[in-house]
């Protein structure tokens, strides 16, 4: 077998994490991106900067604050224990929440750009034809921003797969729960198992390249002339 069982387990966990985060962010990030693209509010700058923060912050800094927030004395930790959900650190759920924040700009920014590129005219045209705002969003904005959705989803997925620092801070290294592929490679190297590290690293490299290849090569038809 090319990869060991624990390697496969790490990969499967990584995929589960990335898929969950991408799905949640599609739901959470879309309204944020829509608002940022359309608003003239004075809050736009502050919200935009906050969303972009994970792009420049060292993952360890982000992970540190998240760990504090999720801890028994943090607001998030207080909330989850009060609700009877238990503590978040060193759990899969904690990892998901941390990754959502960490990957937020990768969802929001491509979507925001795509929404901005549509301009207000097609939306106005739809409104004058009787379409209520929600219908305008789903029948005009979503189809015209399809490329943006694709880019955002792929980037978010790939970025979550590649996450390391935040995972270490929040999740630690529990097999099957928080030990994702990037942490597994780290473990292999720590144990001087270079061959194993090579194999898993090669899989990650191939995956990353494939994702980017898809992103750069493939453009859906629907955005033509938009």
């Amino acid at each position, binding site marked *: 077998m090319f990869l060991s069982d624990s390697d496969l387990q790490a990969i499967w966990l990584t995929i589960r994490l990335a898929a969950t985060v991408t799905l949640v962010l599609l739901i959470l990030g879309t309204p944020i991106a829509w608002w940022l693209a359309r608003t003239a509010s004075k809050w736009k700058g502050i919200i935009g900067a906050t969303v972009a923060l994970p792009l420049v912050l060292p993952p360890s800094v982000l992970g540190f604050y998240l760990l504090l927030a999720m801890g028994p004395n943090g607001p998030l930790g207080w909330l989850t224990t009060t609700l009877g959900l238990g503590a978040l650190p060193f759990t899969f759920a904690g990892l998901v929440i941390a990754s959502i924040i960490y990957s937020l700009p990768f969802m929001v920014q491509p979507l925001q750009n795509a929404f901005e590129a549509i301009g207000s*005219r097609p939306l106005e045209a739809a409104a*004058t*034809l*009787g*379409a209520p705002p929600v*219908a305008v969003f789903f029948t*005009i904005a979503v189809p015209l921003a399809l490329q943006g959705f694709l880019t955002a989803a792929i980037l978010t997925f790939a970025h979550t797969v590649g996450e390391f620092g935040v995972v270490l801070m929040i999740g630690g290294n529990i097999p099957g729960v928080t030990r994702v592929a990037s942490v597994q490679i780290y473990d292999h190297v720590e144990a001087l198992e270079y061959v194993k590290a090579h194999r898993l690293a090669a899989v990650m490299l191939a995956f990353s390249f494939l994702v980017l290849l898809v992103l750069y090569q493939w453009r859906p038809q629907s955005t033509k002339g938009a």
Partner: protein
Amino acid sequence: MEDIEARFQVDWPGFSLDIDLRMPGRGVIALFGHSGSGKTTLLRCIAGLDRNRRGFLRVSGEIWQDGNVWLPPHRRPIGYVFQDASLFPHLSVLGNVRYGLRWAGKENSARVEQAIKLLGIEHLLDRYPERLSGGEKSRVAIARALAVNPRLLLMDEPLAALDFRRKQEILPYLERLIGELDVPMIYVSHSPDEVARLADHLVVMDGGKAVAQGKLADVLTQLDLPVRLGEDAGSVVEAVIGAVDRNWNLARADFAGGSLWTRDCGFPAGQRVRVRVLARDVSLSTEHPVESSIQNCLPGTIDAIGQDEHPGLALARVVIGDQIILARLTRRSAEGLKLAPGREVWVQVKSVALIE
């Protein structure tokens, strides 16, 4: 109660709109003015596209907005044609035309058929907007606006982006739909030619205000019109084709007070037409000219004389029967011929354009 009553005040940095208008609730109302005069802003206020809640709008007895009510655009029964057509690129022509049906109600399916036929786009239905010419896009945009069975059609310079030949291609369709549908239309334009062809009622805008309004012929022949039309100054005469001279390919347009010979454009006798007479093509003389190449010579009475744009030029308003014609002449010849209000003159019209 059939009227359209509109009051809007908009204050933006560098631009303000201050409108208090009462317009007829039928026929074609042209909003005419140079760019930046506020025509499009007014149209957008009427459509509810600009969130200006400090306004009042009543259309055929129904309040669309006042201090308490503000109908969003999708709740106003309008059809809006944007300057750049703004077709949805991800939908076919048919998809575009049928887009509004989801909310306008299925009973409007017949209306879609009618709109498609009126604009002559049957052969384009499967195409996507990227594969349409500019003129075709305009026609699809107009059909799309008609398909929702609007109670008020709003057109924002639908021809402005087209070259001369494309405009000539679309204008007949516009004239046809005006003739066949009983929907009031507000038509924004900066082209005196389009206005003369299409409008019944004219609102002249300048600097965010309506500086003149009334029946087309009345406003066009107002000598103190604040918006200068230059070479386009002229009048529109309502007439009926009285005779067609096949030998010389000429047609005679009759009106109370006289008739005008013009090139035969294929209109049958009895057809109601508009004759556009540009002020620069009209000259006046105090005696009946004996021999002249000019075919049209009518007796009239000077009603008023006003200053033209150039200090050397004057505009004379001449009443012929129940119609008014504008004549451009130099101030020197006005002095020399002792032209003054009340004076009877012979009006020579060098050329006219038949429209509609």
